[in-house]
């Protein structure tokens, strides 16, 4: 088993980092928040071109095979740059559609219209998908930009239509309640597939959170090295140093949990492993965000400062895809089940 990234996986991360840097992602996020989606969708297509979505889709459906370690590597970078759009939701939807593809279902089979039509498009980046998985994921993120919106409510899978969006703390996250429509699939298999989709969504959300925390720590360290008060860099003050050291400790131990959960994909332990990863990643990223805000002082509290985009996002993802409390409860339930 490999507990660290191999050379190819590292290179994949570096390639995405470069792509996201060159795309001027903070500007893309601001456009997205203002309702101008084209730069974000162009970025979506570039990232898909680099393989970010193909690794969520099995080979027989036109993807590169479901590769969890590569997925968390990619989402770490998406997190570091704050890329806007329903990436987590699209990955979860890919898992949902693929799992239903294996099941004999009422209405439609996976090799029928829905999976066959959408999985190849997801892989190549021409389909943006959003979904809700009530009660844990009640809103469809950026459903107005999605080509397909799904909602899997217990044993029933619906295609869905978004209503008016709610405003989020993060203006680049537009959250929609949905009106359920057609029922392409129903039965116990839907609930099973939805549970697997949820776990995968939780995993990549956790990876994204670690990336957000990492980047916030990087920029805050840089700020503390250069910002001067009392005639010296504020990074010389022990109170500041200890804040930043604490942020690092949290992130350093969240990352192995995310990687370990990715390795557990497909095993019966996967749900509890992703819950552990999400708790640690949420806490570490949110702690890093609060420290970033505190160390930056007033500038970090402004809308115009780019790291603020990540500070906001860390807070929203803290509770999206299951809050730490939700996942702690699920973990204990799993562990104490006789």
């Amino acid at each position, binding site marked *: *088993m*490999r*507990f*660290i990234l191999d050379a190819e996986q590292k290179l994949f991360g570096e390639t995405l980092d470069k792509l996201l840097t060159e795309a001027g992602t903070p500007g893309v996020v601001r456009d997205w928040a203002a309702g101008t989606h084209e730069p974000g969708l162009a970025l979506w297509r570039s990232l898909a071109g680099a393989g970010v979505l193909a690794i969520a889709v099995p080979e027989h459906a036109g993807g590169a095979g479901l590769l969890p370690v590569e997925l968390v590597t990619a989402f770490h970078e998406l997190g570091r740059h704050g890329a806007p759009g329903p990436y987590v939701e699209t990955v979860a939807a890919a898992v949902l559609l693929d799992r239903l593809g294996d099941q004999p279902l009422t209405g439609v089979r996976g090799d029928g219209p829905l999976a066959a039509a959408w999985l190849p498009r997801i892989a190549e980046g021409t389909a943006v998908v959003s979904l809700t998985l009530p009660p844990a994921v009640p809103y469809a993120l950026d459903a107005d930009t999605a080509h397909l919106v799904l909602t899997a409510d217990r044993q029933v899978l619906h295609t869905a239509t978004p209503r008016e969006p709610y405003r989020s703390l993060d203006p680049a996250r537009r959250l929609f309640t949905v009106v359920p429509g057609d029922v392409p699939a129903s039965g116990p298999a839907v609930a099973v597939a939805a549970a697997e989709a949820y776990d995968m969504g939780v995993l990549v959300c956790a990876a994204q959170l670690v990336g957000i925390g990492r980047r916030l*720590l990087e920029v805050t*360290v840089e700020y*503390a*090295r250069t910002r001067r008060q009392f005639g*010296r*860099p504020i*990074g*010389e003050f*022990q109170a*500041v*140093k*200890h804040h*930043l*050291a*604490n942020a*690092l*400790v949290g992130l*350093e*131990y*969240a990352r*192995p*949990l995310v*990687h*370990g959960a990715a390795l557990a994909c497909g095993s019966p332990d996967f749900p509890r492993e992703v819950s*552990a990863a999400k*708790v*640690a990643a949420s806490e570490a990223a949110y702690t890093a965000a609060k420290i970033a805000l505190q160390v930056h002082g007033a500038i970090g509290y402004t809308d115009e400062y780019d790291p603020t985009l990540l500070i906001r996002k860390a807070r929203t993802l803290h509770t999206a895809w299951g809050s*730490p*409390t939700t996942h*702690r*409860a699920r*973990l*204990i339930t799993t*562990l*104490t089940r006789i």
Partner: protein
Amino acid sequence: MDLDLSAVEPFRAEVRAWLRAHVPATPLPSLETEEGFAAHRAWERELHAARLAVVSWPREYGGRDATPLEWLVFEEEYYAAGAPGRVGQNGINLLAPTLFQHGTPEQLARILPPMASGEVIWAQAWSEPGAGSDLASLRATATRADDGWLLNGQKTWSSRAAFADRGFGPFRSDPQAERHRGLTYLMFPLDADGITRRPIGRIDGKPAFAELFFDDVFVPDRDVIGRPGEGWRVAMSTTGNERGLTLRSPGRFLAAADRLLELWRAHGDPADTALRDRVADAWIKARAYRLKGFETISRTEDVGAESSINKIFWSELDLALHETALDLLGPDGELAGEWLEGYVFSLAGPIYAGTNEIQRDLIAERVLGLPRTGR
């Protein structure tokens, strides 16, 4: 590097079977008491006879040349079995790695086998009344004598020194030199002429450490580790072990987290979600520490200053784990027992091996690259 977890399963099974047959059914008395110290020493002999005392060491010194992964597996099984605490840990985990790095073949051959068997138990003698976090300000001296050195001065907070056989630590051999230079790393018998030891009761009264007074204690040249004057460098090569995986392996926290979960199952109030969350966090962090351990041994580069991150994490985890257990036990939390013993031990974690405040400074400066400042 890939870790082949299935390939170590036979080793795991062997260790598990041996421990099942040999771990005492009732816990030994606390190793911080005279009676308990002796019982733990006898246990070390038993472990050694099965070649399980120091699995990662070379065979010639009593080990098995175990890989780092096998060592981690041994530790997991050891603590899962509820086996006794390791009374020889300061020698095995702190002195031995220093000897492997800086010792002469003669020193390795002479010192390691009796350390492995528990015949000689070692105590670390670093701190002084005026040199705690600021270790480099230490003042106990080593003065040149014929074929050796004369030690004078005082060491304190020396763990296990109340009952141990020998000690090791840095002494100032060149008072004129800059404070990080002019130190020499020495080993000495704790019953040598000129040494007075005064056991110190720790917070629960047990004599877990001691104060040592040196009055012209002779140490032969063969008991100097590394070159005279290079004691700081030699000592610092130990700190990576002390703060890193070696001293506190994931196994002990995984086992404690599993026991905490059992305690929750047996005594937890399902309505107390705050306590439930703390149980969950302890389990998550123990697991994080295990995965981080696998990550660390998979890497080829030196962990270096990152061991400070490790030290903060395990010491805070250990304390949180035991606090949670005591809170779960409620009115029984204050009663003598394994959880309380573990709690008292864990209270010292954020202090020894370099306080967590020092570790945070080191992380900020050496890992994150923030400007260095005088402390």
